């Protein structure tokens, strides 16, 4: 293991993280909801009421608009470098959806919200998906 000092950005990471935490906090304070993106998307389908669908769609629209506004204000392009293409990219997409539905949450719901509430379920989920993601990257990059 070596540390990639050249790409290490602790300050912007921490600042961005604080904003993500603030968003989670505000969603709980105003609407009493856990800010879990997989759950917010999942709730759009099925038997949800129109009020239920409304706040979910508004939140997701905001999430799309946030980076665009940031890019317009700072005039700094947001870097997007893919690590996968073709089948690997599409299999990944399906697995992300499948896994978060079965595991009842993702990085935002179990990670940012669950850990902040000291939920043992979320702690187990975070350890499981972190370990699995680290193992997957190790296999893809080093074997």
């Amino acid at each position, binding site marked *: 293991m070596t540390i990639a000092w050249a790409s290490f950005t602790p300050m912007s990471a921490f600042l961005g993280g604080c904003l993500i935490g603030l968003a989670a906090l505000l969603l709980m304070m105003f609407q009493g909801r856990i800010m879990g993106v997989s759950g917010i998307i999942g709730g759009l389908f099925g038997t949800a009421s129109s009020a239920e669908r409304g706040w979910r769609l508004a939140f997701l629209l905001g999430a799309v608009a946030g980076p665009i506004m940031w890019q317009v204000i700072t005039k700094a392009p947001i870097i*997007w470098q893919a690590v996968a293409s073709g089948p690997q990219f599409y299999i990944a997409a399906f697995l992300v959806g499948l896994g978060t539905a079965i595991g009842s949450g993702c990085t935002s719901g179990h990670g940012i919200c669950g850990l902040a509430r000291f939920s043992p379920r979320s702690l187990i989920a975070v350890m499981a998906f972190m370990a699995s993601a*680290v193992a997957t990257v190790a296999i893809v990059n080093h074997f």
Partner: protein
Amino acid sequence: MTRLITALIIGSIFGAGLAIAGMLNPSKVVGFLDVFGDWDPSLAFVMGGGVLVNAIGHRFVMKRKAPIQCATFSMPTSTNIDKPLVIGSVIFGMGWGLAGLCPGPVVASLFLNGQAMLPFFGLMIAGLLVGRIVMRRLV
């Protein structure tokens, strides 16, 4: 209407946070997950900042009887650590590691790189719906 506006504003704070943090760049995410290679620990600070702010604020928010804009707090009710929780999370981790994308950044980068992200978003939703059917069979 006011509920929709707050949800929109909160969503954009979330999206901007992801952008500032570097979470929208799959290569950066995989750099964080690549513990056995050239490791970039930055994203640990995203989780750290997010959990810190939320954990401190959560204690105060929970002292309220109800949220500001609706009648009750909707908290997760399940507390048992079961097979679906672990297996689902492992499957999610595999997908996250393969492409460096988790659901929040997928949504937030829909218009940054729509050509790649729209199909990803569609397939992710297909996975979500299949996962839901699997869950119904299990329970």
